[in-house]
């Protein structure tokens, strides 16, 4: 069988072994939890609780406002401490009070709209790299008949990250069932569980549950970064090439992250809202790296403490993977629905690099998955030449960071290009 992949990409050290082989643990939340209401695409969620009000785990605390928005639920039982436009903070009472679950029938008896409503009520959003795009919108394309493939993205191409892998290994039945629920919405669709070929054990586990599932199959992809990027993944599996102006659903394709599928399963089968997720805590400054099932809203300091705390003072803490994650100045932040990892490093290689002029080696071009010429785009961006930047398809940059990673002159190509692109697309 031909190797499924895309052209370009890089091979950073994977650093997954330490956390991949450890069963995930629970991280119990003891401190207060906070919920930013703005991180979703589109509109803020509107708070529906007042200060001093008692909430249980699973209580709706902010309601989706408008179409592209998602519900937010409390992940602990306690008293609402603070509410404003942006944030809700809940004082953790330390009690296991849980909101009664939504009564649900077996999903096979449900109408498609009923399933989508449950997913919307549960506040399910993209939990991989999709920056929290509401899942119910993804699942409501104009013409559901035209969807040919539903792809479960289990590539997890970022180094250090193993939370999707652990979810696949530990709860393969639920992932398969979650995908079956989604397939029920799309009569003509085929389900594909896409996993990179360095995670064969996950493929074997999943296959055990696919014996009488003619509509679902697994696909192994070449291990390379950014294999899990939506357009690159779609190309590797279906040979369809999409650009930034095209929606995957227009090409009859839906891509959902493993963790999102798990949240769909919880919402539809158990009637539970999205209030917890799996997060990888790793890096050389962490004492006991591993994966944790953690409540959304938990302060990341609590999560780091659950991983044994720091062995040495970290110089850099990253929320997300090392390729596209965000480095933070302080640790007083909550776990959000799209937080897939907390990485802490004793030393930061980026501040120690020696930058030189571009030497035209062409490496950035070789690795760019969008076939762009990053070095030129960065030059245009530095000169604020929006016209040249647009003519050379700078807008098509997917922001994977491969160019900055590979550049021997250590130029911050991705930083310059992504900043320019953000500026131009917000115009």
């Amino acid at each position, binding site marked *: 069988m031909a190797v499924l992949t895309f052209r370009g990409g890089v091979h950073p050290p994977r650093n997954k072994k330490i956390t991949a082989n450890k069963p995930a643990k629970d991280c119990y939340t003891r401190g207060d939890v906070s919920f930013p209401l703005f991180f979703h695409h589109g509109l803020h969620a509107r708070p529906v609780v007042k200060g001093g009000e008692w909430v249980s785990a699973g209580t709706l605390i902010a309601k989706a406002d408008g179409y592209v928005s998602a519900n937010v639920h409390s992940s602990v039982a306690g008293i609402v401490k603070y509410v404003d436009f942006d944030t809700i903070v809940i004082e953790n009472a330390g009690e296991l009070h849980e909101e009664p679950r939504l009564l649900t029938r077996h999903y096979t008896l449900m109408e498609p709209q009923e399933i989508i409503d449950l997913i919307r009520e549960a506040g399910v959003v993209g939990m991989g790299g999709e920056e929290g795009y509401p899942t119910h919108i993804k699942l409501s394309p104009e013409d559901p008949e035209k969807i040919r493939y539903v792809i479960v993205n289990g590539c997890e191409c970022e180094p250090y990250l193993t939370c999707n892998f652990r979810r696949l290994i530990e709860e393969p039945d639920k992932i398969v069932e979650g995908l079956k629920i989604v397939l029920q919405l799309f009569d003509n669709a085929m389900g594909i569980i896409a996993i990179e070929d360095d995670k064969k054990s996950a493929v074997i586990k999943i296959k055990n549950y696919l014996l009488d599932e003619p509509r679902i199959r697994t696909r192994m992809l070449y291990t390379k970064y950014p294999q899990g990027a939506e357009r690159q993944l779609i190309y590797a599996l279906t040979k369809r090439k999409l650009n930034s102006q*095209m929606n995957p659903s227009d090409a009859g394709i839906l891509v959902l992250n493993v963790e999102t599928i798990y949240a769909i399963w919880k919402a539809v089968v158990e009637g539970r809202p999205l209030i917890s997720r799996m997060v990888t805590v790793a890096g050389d400054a962490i004492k006991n790296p591993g994966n944790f099932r953690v409540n959304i809203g938990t302060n990341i300091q609590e999560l780091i403490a659950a991983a044994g705390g720091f062995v040495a003072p970290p110089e850099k803490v990253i929320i997300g993977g090392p390729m596209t994650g965000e480095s933070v100045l302080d640790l007083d932040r909550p776990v959000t629905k799209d937080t897939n990892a907390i990485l802490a490093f004793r030393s930061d290689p980026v501040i120690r690099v020696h930058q030189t*002029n571009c030497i035209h080696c062409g490496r950035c071009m070789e690795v760019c998955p969008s076939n762009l010429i990053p*070095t030129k785009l960065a030059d245009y961006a530095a000169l604020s030449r929006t016209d040249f930047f647009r003519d050379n398809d700078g807008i098509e940059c997917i922001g994977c960071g491969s160019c900055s990673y590979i550049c021997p002159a250590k130029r911050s190509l991705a930083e310059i290009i992504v900043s320019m692109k953000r500026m131009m697309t917000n115009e």
Partner: protein
Amino acid sequence: MNENTKLRISFFPHIRDKASTSRIMLDVAIALLPACIFGVFNFGWYSLLLILVCVATCVVLEFLWDVLTKKKMTIRDLSAVVTGMILSLNLPPKLPLWMAAVGSAFAIVIVKLLFGGLGQNFMNPAAAAKCFLMICFTGQMNLFVYQGVLSTTPLDVLRAGGSVDLLQLFLGNTSGCIGETCAVALIIGAIYLFIRRIIDFRIPLCYLLAAFIYIAIYSLVTRGGIDFTLIGAHMLGGGMLLGAFFMATDYVTSPVSRPGRMIYGALVGALICTFRLFGSTNGSICYAIILSNLVVPLIERITRRKTFGKEA
């Protein structure tokens, strides 16, 4: 918990590849060492002095430039060392030291620094400097002394109707410029560059292939058959390999796209043979390279890749 720790922030990605500009330049310098060592062995200690003068002139002038223009120090990237080494390997073994220094100064100051330093020059500094020296000091640049006697290069011998020993050309026991005579040393260096993935095979392959085909056709037309001695002498002699692996592959002055590199390589190879077969032999490599450097922007334009998802 983190009161006394200071966190750093930066834009993604937070990890970087090991390769760096100075490491690449160091690798090129290492790859040039066999040719340097053989040059000194073949032509004597004076050629070592020439190599050192070229390297020192390049580095010192770049250092002074950075100091005088109050720029960030750039000699750490080792590109000046490489420029000096390549230029010195292209010089005849008994060139007066001051001429070598003038050539190095031209390469670094005029060709490289005046255009903005590393990465900004549009011509290969070493090749441009050699051409400059060829024009200014034509006599000295064409004076080849080998084993104490005035001699001609193998290609000039061939031109004059004499015969050459291909094995000696391969091993390098011939007259010529310091670094160009020994094919073995150059190939060892090239293998090192390939192993370290510094150079792309496309430029040298297309360059050598174009030269091979060109000379084969030439010998077919003028001699009625393929003359393998002629082809062999041209492929091994007169800096052909030095140009193929170390000068045409210069990142700064060659195209970045893969098809562009193929076109560029073939162009350099064809131009070299044109100059050699119909013009003068000495310096043809450098002339061909700087001429091809000028069309690089054009090659880049016609070989621009289609953006992913916008092929149609």
